């Protein structure tokens, strides 16, 4: 029997970093990703023949060259649908396969948080990340009048990238006042400052307005355009635009997989802790090395503490302070009809109907929060914050309970057609 593969889910910096170290140590590796190419979110690759946008392209080119020189198997356009208690993993999509991996490495990257606002479910209102993915794959700026709103350094990055590609956003609406204490920023690592200074120079030259301590309070469809109402410390403003990109920070994305007694599971990069690109690569490599050693020697996994992670953690904490704001309280002011759960259409009124401090069971079974295909990954934070006394406090890790298999919706036909190398029948036979 051939040696079982390590399954790495996610072909970004952490996943490819881990795969490289595993393969170098002689472990067979399969890397699966939903996207058609490796790159993840940071190094999303352009369509063939289009210009690459991502900064630090050299870092990615080096890593992917390393990966290509090693015996690594790839499964693109493929979803990881879960790991059951026996240690059987299901892949679905272009690769349809039930497999029993030697270990499971989750390198799913971060998840974008978007706070509900009036009109946030309208077409042409997307995450700022979705605009950035479009820009990186097309090598072109998203067209039309674009407003970017929310909180965090990503807004400025997307705005600068759009500007360099010839379509600056109409404005940036930022909840915090990140430029109010320039001295705080000076304590950031030089690499952060240089990147931010480059973006800011582009935005200032193009005269892109940055409204701070400002909030998008309502978006309305007006013909084919969107009318966006913004509150600023100097009074209200209305923007008429074609697209809105919302972004309220990034969160780790553990994908809902819990520890499994049958196979080692480890989360690396931003899906374990949001520390950014440099840390993701370091975490991927260190995790890969530790896992390979443990698998080869049959010993428990020991990860060497990394100075990169320590440094990036301090930088992220500083960024969080620079971008701190008290706009979470606005959740309480939203009209009752505002959709909180996009999958099931659950509104703030539906949530309030469950009474004060509802339990997970009530939220799920009565409110149907977390019961849709995203399993509460998107709405969990808002459900928790909106029903907490202080919406500004960080919500619990899994406010709507653990995710269940399958983690992503899959077609029954794919499940039936999946090739199985688990030694078991392709379909579970209980209950027949």
């Amino acid at each position: 029997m051939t040696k079982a593969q390590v399954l790495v889910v996610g072909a970004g910096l952490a996943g490819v970093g881990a795969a490289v170290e595993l393969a170098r140590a002689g472990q067979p590796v399969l890397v699966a990703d939903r996207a058609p190419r490796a790159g993840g979110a940071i190094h999303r690759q352009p369509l063939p023949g289009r210009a690459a946008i991502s900064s630090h392209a050299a870092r990615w080119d080096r890593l992917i060259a390393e990966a290509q020189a090693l015996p690594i198997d790839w499964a693109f356009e493929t979803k990881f649908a879960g790991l059951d208690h026996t240690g059987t993993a299901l892949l679905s999509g272009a690769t349809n396969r039930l497999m029993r991996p030697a270990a499971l490495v989750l390198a799913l990257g971060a998840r974008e948080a978007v706070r509900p606002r009036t009109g946030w479910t309208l077409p042409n209102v997307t995450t700022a990340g979705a605009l950035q993915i479009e820009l990186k794959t097309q090598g072109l700026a998203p067209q039309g009048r674009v407003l970017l709103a929310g909180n965090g350094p990503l807004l400025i990055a997307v705005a600068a990238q759009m500007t360099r590609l010839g379509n600056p956003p109409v404005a940036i609406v930022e909840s915090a006042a990140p430029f109010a204490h320039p001295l705080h920023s000076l304590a950031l690592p030089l690499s952060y400052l240089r990147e931010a200074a480059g973006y800011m120079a582009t935005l200032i030259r193009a005269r892109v307005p940055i409204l701070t301590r400002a909030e998008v309070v309502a978006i309305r469809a007006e013909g084919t355009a969107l009318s966006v109402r913004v509150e600023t410390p100097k009074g209200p403003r209305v923007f008429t635009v074609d697209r809105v990109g919302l972004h309220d920070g990034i969160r780790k994305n553990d994908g809902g997989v819990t520890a499994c007694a049958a196979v080692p599971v480890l989360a690396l990069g931003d899906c374990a802790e949001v520390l950014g690109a440099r840390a993701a690569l370091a975490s991927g490599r260190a995790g890969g090395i530790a896992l390979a050693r443990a698998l080869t020697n049959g010993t428990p996994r020991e990860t060497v503490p990394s100075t990169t992670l320590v440094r990036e953690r301090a930088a992220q904490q500083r960024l969080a302070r620079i971008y701190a704001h008290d706009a979470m309280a606005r959740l309480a002011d939203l009209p009752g009809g505002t959709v909180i759960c996009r999958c099931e259409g659950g509104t703030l009124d539906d949530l309030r109907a469950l009474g004060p401090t509802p339990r997970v069971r009530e939220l799920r079974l009565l409110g149907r929060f977390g019961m849709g295909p995203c399993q509460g990954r998107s709405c969990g934070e808002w459900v928790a914050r909106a029903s907490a006394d202080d919406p500004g406090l960080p919500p619990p890790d899994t406010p709507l309970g653990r995710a269940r298999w399958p983690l992503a919706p899959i077609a029954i036909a794919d499940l039936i057609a999946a090739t199985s190398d688990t030694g078991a029948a392709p379909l579970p036979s209980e209950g027949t």
Partner: protein
Amino acid sequence: MSGPVIYWRDRILAFTPGESVAHALTRAGIAAFGPGPVGVPRAVFCGIGQCQMCLVQIDGRTVEACLTLCRDGLRVGPEQEINHD
């Protein structure tokens, strides 16, 4: 139209090889992908396969427009066919 195309209802849309269905629709000015089952309209939101808001019908299957790549002759329609009677 030379080059490869996909079909969206009665429209024919050109695409660049490797492009997602969502991007081809977006470039053609199509942002609304039809009604959803619970009143939230189908449209791109996360762009990376997490939110399930961009579901469309292709070959009788419900798939994410943002994850599905265009292929020549692909017929794409709303997740739920709108009833006009």
